């Protein structure tokens, strides 16, 4: 379980995040520039919150009061970047194997061969990221992230760069992966179609205090969530 409780000051406004994630897909939704990616960056350890606590499965990753700040490489979180951030100088096989540790004995676990077959990228192994389409890059980024055997996957607008028909098939694949791996997702999006992937949707809540300072908060409060056909939804209306 991921537990998040922090504040991060940005030049224009302050972001506050307060939520926990179990084996589910948690969506942070809000317009561009509402600090969604900043929240993901703080979880991954790429940016540091100004104060607060982040813990994953009981291990504290960040704590401003006790001065804990675990390096991104030790946080065990996969991060699918919006631009995929594939390594330009490496071919696809080397890209997806980058974070993979070959097990001593083959116990039928994850391997680059298996995952590339699963994500239908096995014919691309010798190519370079430059030579791939958007959908292919997205699949490679997923394969690379999953092979590092993360305890949680962070996804930044995973489908928004793709065309409509691809979006639908990849959306289904994401749900499949989430289901099969029992892997919690934290997904960030400004698009409603993508947000519908989520079991829980946290909409950016923008408030301006009496001193004129803007606070954007992503807060999970299960008491006031409305139940909608098994999925709990909080509608993204507060910002519009």
């Amino acid at each position, binding site marked *: 379980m991921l537990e998040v409780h922090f504040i991060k000051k940005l030049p224009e406004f302050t972001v506050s995040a307060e939520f926990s994630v179990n084996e589910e897909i948690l969506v942070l939704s809000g317009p561009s520039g509402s600090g969604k990616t900043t929240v993901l960056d703080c979880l991954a350890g790429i940016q540091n919150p100004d104060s607060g606590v982040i813990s994953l499965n009981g291990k504290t990753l960040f704590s401003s009061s006790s001065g804990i700040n675990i390096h991104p*490489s030790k946080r065990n979180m*996969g991060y699918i*970047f919006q631009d995929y*951030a594939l*390594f330009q*100088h490496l071919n696809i096989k080397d890209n997806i194997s*980058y974070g993979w540790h070959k097990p001593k004995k083959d116990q039928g676990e994850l391997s680059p061969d298996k995952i590339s077959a699963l994500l239908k990228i096995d014919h691309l192994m010798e190519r370079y990221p430059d030579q791939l389409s958007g959908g292919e890059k997205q699949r490679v980024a997923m394969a690379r992230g999953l092979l590092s055997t993360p305890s949680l996957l962070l996804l930044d607008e995973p489908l928004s760069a793709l065309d409509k028909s691809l979006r639908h098939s990849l959306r289904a694949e994401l749900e499949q992966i989430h289901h099969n791996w029992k892997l919690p997702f934290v997904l960030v999006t400004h698009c409603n179609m993508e947000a519908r992937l989520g079991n829980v949707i946290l909409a950016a809540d923008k408030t301006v205090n009496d001193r004129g300072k803007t606070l954007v908060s992503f807060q999970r409060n299960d008491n006031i969530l409305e139940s909608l056909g098994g999925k709990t939804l909080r509608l993204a209306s507060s910002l519009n």
Partner: protein
Amino acid sequence: MDNFIEPILISLKIASLATILAFVIGTACARLMTRVNIPCKEAIETLLTLPMVLPPTVVGFGLLLLLGRNGPIGKVLAAIFNMQVVFTLWGAVIAAVVVAFPLVYINVRAGLEKVDVNQERAARTLGAGELKVFFTITLPLAWPGLVSGIVLAFTRSLGEFGATLMVAGSIPGQTQTIPMAVYFSVMNGETQEAMPLVTCVIVFSFFLLFWFNWWSRKMISTRR
């Protein structure tokens, strides 16, 4: 024949050592300057690249002051290693490092600045520590800048004359490099002696530059 081969070997030795040293120090400084916020960054940077615009004899003069028997660095070297660098091969190497360093620094820095931060971040989230990120992602992505730096530093070291003459002199068989040998042959009226050396340098430089231009064109066409 001996005095034809000797200056070439000495030049190659000095230029190779100087290129390696300038590359390591230049890359470390470039990395530090792109990542760390230090006060007076601009002033430090100007100081580091100053040898590029100074007349080589001025650089040589400064080095003599620092490295000479009574210079601050000279004293330390003498006290700890019982070592005297002025008028030795190491003096020539130091002179070449100082003049070649700015070329490495500027090119590597430009290369590092072009590296996509997100790819480095992705590597970190995949479990790579800072050293692994630097050697497997940052350096390979900055490769074009590194190669320009290495090639320019090497050719600059090979051609170095003024500072080297001041610091290392022109001792045949010890510190007499190609440019020195050419200059002193002509000065002594032995123009014919200089011919093979001059031809050698022109042919070598032609092929190096030819390869470098071909390589840069290839890099530009493969990287979008």
